């Protein structure tokens, strides 16, 4: 297990290096370097431009620049936003809780509905439940979520008036300090009446939109994993004991079927964040996804560079953790030392 851990860690090092290199090159490949962008600014002199260039280290040899960049990253220096002049890391960390809160809610939504749906479909194989659940799952899987978000806004907000259209909180009626950055927790801490419900109402639509594709994936995955497991000898043994179907399916089969599903859930962090970019844009959710898109619009390349570096690092680390915790749910691996 320890050697496995070391090997797995060693494998991520080149990926990290390559990631640094790509983000480093990116800012140099962008048409017109970041200084050129400012040429249009009124009253900026060529001397001032050269000065800026020097400040950003762009007049150094390229290898030196890369070394400086990597050195900075290792010390938590992810650059400074051109527009806001704030350190990128600081901006990222302020916005990140919003993305995490949304992603966790979406994932919970997907798991809590997807797993039971997959189990029901598998145990009613070929029946009406199976067919309709899997039809729905495939529809969800095929969903262009930006459209899905707009449709939900149209129906739930504009027509039925059930949910707010955008943002995380109703700023007119509620104001409370950000303690954890998670609105669900902050609103409870604030003790303001109705604040928690307001936070929940803001979360509903984004959660559904971001959770739809993972929900479909989890449901389909659970079903096929379950179907495979149901053919196993030990399931037959469980049935041979005269156990009730809910015990055979819900305990003996499900426990085994969930092993691949948990892996898929863990490895879906990347696609969840990709979905978050769209979802946050639709719902004006102040998270890192929306911030990235806006950075592109503002040509804030340092922010983009730092943001991509940070997001990808998170994906790499989470995938690593998923690999390592895989053993915890599978005794066959846990004991293979």
């Amino acid at each position, binding site marked *: 297990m320890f050697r496995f851990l070391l090997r797995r860690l060693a494998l991520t090092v080149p990926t990290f290096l*390559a*990631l640094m290199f790509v983000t480093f090159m990116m800012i140099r490949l962008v048409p017109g370097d970041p200084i050129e962008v400012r040429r249009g600014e009124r009253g900026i002199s060529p001397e001032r431009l050269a000065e800026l260039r020097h400040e950003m280290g762009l007049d150094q040899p390229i290898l030196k620049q890369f070394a400086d960049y990597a050195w900075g990253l290792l010390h938590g220096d992810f650059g400074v936003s051109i527009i806001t002049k704030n350190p990128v890391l600081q901006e990222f960390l302020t916005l990140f809780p919003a993305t995490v809160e949304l992603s966790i809610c979406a994932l919970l939504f997907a798991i809590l509905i997807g797993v039971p749906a997959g189990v029901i479909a598998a145990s009613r194989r070929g029946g009406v439940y199976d067919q309709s659940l899997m039809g729905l799952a*495939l529809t969800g*899987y095929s969903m*262009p979520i930006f*459209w899905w978000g707009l449709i939900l806004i149209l129906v739930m907000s504009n027509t039925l008036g059930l949910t707010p259209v955008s943002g995380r909180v109703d700023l007119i009626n509620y104001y409370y300090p950000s303690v954890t950055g998670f609105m669900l927790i902050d609103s409870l801490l604030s003790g303001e009446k109705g604040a928690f419900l307001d936070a929940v109402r803001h979360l509903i639509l984004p959660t559904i939109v971001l959770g739809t594709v993972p929900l479909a994936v989890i449901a389909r995955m659970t079903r096929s994993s379950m179907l495979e497991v149901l053919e196993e000898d030990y399931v037959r043994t469980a049935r041979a004991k005269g156990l009730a179907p809910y015990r055979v399916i819900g305990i003996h089969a499900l426990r085994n079927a969930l092993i691949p599903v948990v892996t898929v859930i863990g490895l879906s962090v990347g696609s969840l964040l*990709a979905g978050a970019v769209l979802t946050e844009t639709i719902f004006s959710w102040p998270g890192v996804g929306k911030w990235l898109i806006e950075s592109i619009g503002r040509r804030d390349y340092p922010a983009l560079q730092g943001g991509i570096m940070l997001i*990808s690092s998170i994906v790499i680390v989470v*995938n690593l953790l998923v690999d390592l915790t895989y053993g915890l749910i599978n005794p066959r691996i846990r004991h293979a030392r």
Partner: protein
Amino acid sequence: MPVDASLPAVAGPTAPPSPLLSFWRSFRENRGAVMGLVVVVFVIFVAIFAHVLAPHDPLEQFRGFTKLPPIWVDGGSWTYPLGTDALGRDMLSRLMYGSRISLFIGLSVMVVSMICGVVLGLASAWFGGVTDVIILRIMDLIMSIPSLVLAILIVAIIGPNLTNTIVAVTVVYLPRYVRLVRASALTELSKDYVTAAKVSGVGPWRLMFVTVLPNCLPPLIVQAALGVCDAILEAAALGFLGLGAQPPTPEWGSMLADSRDLITSHPWVMALPGIAILITVLAINLMGDGLRDALDPRLKKS
């Protein structure tokens, strides 16, 4: 016990069906897959003959007829069966031409990914060693960046247009093809028939492309079908974010983005392109599921 080995074998009542026939049989049995196939054929037909079928030029702006509702809503007219958008362009014609663009993106991404995936995957499996490590690390890198973020990054660098959308989406989904080909090639390479071919002096090119590759095809075909869906969705998302095909190109994603402001007043302008994407992608996915079940002997009922 004396045994007469020359006894003629008695023919059984049914012979095992041929692989292609049994593939078609199990595909046909899957109602969803057949439905998907029909829809896909329909969409392809519309895409090919859009210039004949479309009632109007997709770019022509009928200034006097902006934001007309579809035919089934009061005020709709047969001249513009699905209504018109904010600039008075005919929705039906734009949707028809849009199918061209979406299918073109989906298919090009799929073909390019397939070719690159097969080459890189086979190289990785065949050479092993450093080649394998380098290819795998690059694929790991691509996969560690969330797909849409990477596509956005690439488009930001090379500029937003249709061709670059295809490039970006291809890069994003390449690892799936490479890993799939590599994995199945490795499995095949360890089998006896490959060893036999090697021993009998078959050259490496012939071995990889004629002996090994055909046996890796079934999962690759399924991946290709799913890959078309992913590409269409990803390209539409880029279009929606304004980073894909640029206006006035009738691309479904950017049509959706254009009509965001009309969501309350003229919802159909926004709803229609999304429905087109959903139906197309759903149909291809249905077909892909059918392909997988029919190609994967493990899942067969017999």
